[in-house]
């Protein structure tokens, strides 16, 4: 059973085609990277999958369950959780409170049998993220890297069956990127399929097993990282085309 299958997904903003018949699927236990130049439609794709935007045609199936027209919170309760490129932290709360909010969703409540069990699980997630010492800190006092980790921790509290990360490396230092890469790899070894949008290709290519490349709303390539970096279309999308030399007279 494929965790996520997107078939011919299209989305237009007025006359602009943001996504044109995009198809891909995520296999169990896979890390899939989605790359593409700025404005290619990657985040729009995530918004369509996670229910924040409606799409015009095509279908999105989560474990062979069609989720077209579902509200974002319903999709989370079916097991697909996303994080945000532009961080949306719960300012004005403590880390522990912020992490408790997703534990109130239906999916998380069904998994916890007792209060104690739930607290232990929350603390365990924070410790896995390396935020164990920040439990009682105000969210406002965390730095960018910690906020990213908290965002991922928040997603994990909903017990996702598939995780969508929107540019988890943006604005982070190399050390923090390594940290987040390790977290993602650990989650993946526990069997969680992950989809990552990323601009930092060097770090991404080490992490993923398969890459989908999008440009101007079209899928232009799909394959293993080794194949993608040699793909002519991809190189063209990122670097542009060599202009034909005009013979000087």
């Amino acid at each position, binding site marked *: 059973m494929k965790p996520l299958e997107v078939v011919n997904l299209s989305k237009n903003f007025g006359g602009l085609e943001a996504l044109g018949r995009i198809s891909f699927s995520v296999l169990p236990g896979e890390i899939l990277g989605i790359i593409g130049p700025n404005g290619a439609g990657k985040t729009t794709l995530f918004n369509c999958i*996670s229910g*924040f935007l409606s799409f015009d045609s095509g279908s999105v199936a989560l474990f062979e369950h069609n989720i077209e027209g579902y*509200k*974002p*919170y319903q999709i*989370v*309760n079916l097991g697909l*959780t*996303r*994080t*945000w490129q532009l961080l*949306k*932290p*719960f*300012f*004005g*709360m403590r880390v*522990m*409170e*912020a992490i*408790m*909010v*997703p534990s*109130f*969703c*239906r*999916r*998380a409540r069904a998994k916890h049998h007792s*209060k104690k069990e739930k*607290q232990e699980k929350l*603390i365990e997630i924070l410790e896995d993220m390396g935020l164990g010492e920040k*439990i*009682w800190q105000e969210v406002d006092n965390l730095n960018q890297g910690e906020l990213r980790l908290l965002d991922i921790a*928040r*997603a994990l*509290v*909903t017990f996702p069956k598939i995780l969508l990360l929107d540019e988890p490396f943006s604005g982070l230092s190399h050390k923090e990127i390594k940290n987040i890469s390790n977290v993602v790899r650990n989650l993946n070894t526990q069997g969680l399929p992950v989809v990552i949008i990323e601009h930092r290709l060097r770090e991404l290519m080490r992490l993923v097993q398969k890459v989908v490349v999008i440009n101007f709303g079209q899928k232009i390539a799909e394959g293993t990282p080794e194949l993608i970096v040699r793909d002519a279309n991809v190189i063209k999308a990122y670097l542009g085309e060599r202009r034909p030399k005009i013979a000087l007279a």
Partner: protein
Amino acid sequence: MNLPGKLESFTRNQSPFGLLVLVAMAVFGLVSDNLFYIEVIKVAAIYAIFAMSWDILTGYTHEVNFGCAFFIGGAGYLSGILNSIFSFSLYLAIPLSALAAGISGIFIGYLTLRLKGPYFAMATLAFASILFKLSFIFYEITGGEEGISGLDVFTDDPTKDFFVAWGVMVAVYFTLMLYAQSKHGMILKAIRADEDATQSAGINTAYYKTEAFAISGFMAGIGGGVFAHSQMHIGPTMLSGHISTIIILLAIIGGMGTIVGPLLGAICLTIINEYLRVVEEYRIVLYTGILILLIYLIPEGLLNLKFIKKSKMLSFLFLGDRKPT
């Protein structure tokens, strides 16, 4: 690490200062035999109900509700009509009208869900204005400009009347505290920080916002009913933009999003307002002058001041916030 249980955390997180204010008012009511002072703190207690009920919606979601007069005046009028025309007992009329206010809260909440910021404020203002106009159009029932007079009173004794208002205020205070410190309050705070992120945490934000609207409406409705019957009168001023604005100012000056803040703000400022009656000609000027000054100097509100939030002792004293070590 052990997190306290729900009930335990409720008793732990009580603001000592809030409790002190509640007790001090009761003691004052018992000791004082000056009817004017009793009347003043009765009005203060009712305004505290209004300010706290406004706070549970706006303080926790930061969507400014400019139409609290809709619930206050609406419930007051409904209770007055039920009492004077249909001769319902006031102990039935007040809960019924509060319930009606709560249900209309669900309705308005549902209609204004998608609105944000100034658009939300204008929509809520419009609802209150509709009711204000209706009170003049249906003057045969509502008495038009004069309102409805001669409503039943709780008791004949002003001190006992005060204790009725005080009891309702205490009940509203503890209910809202319990609500704000429960998971509902936490989710409202998360919605205030970011609604999309709360949705992507699997929370049906529309439901919680509507619920907060209903509770805010219900509590304001109780206050409106108690106000109408304790004054024996309900007039169109309680539906006007004036009352909404005053309540918003009281709550903001006290410190929104804390429940204790609006309680404090409403009580202190109402007492100041009534005390200024010794210079009646200048009262409105002085009172609004004080409000403008306070809003200018402390836009975040008294209890949201930085040094209170930072200080361990003060934040415990005023907000009941125990900083873990």
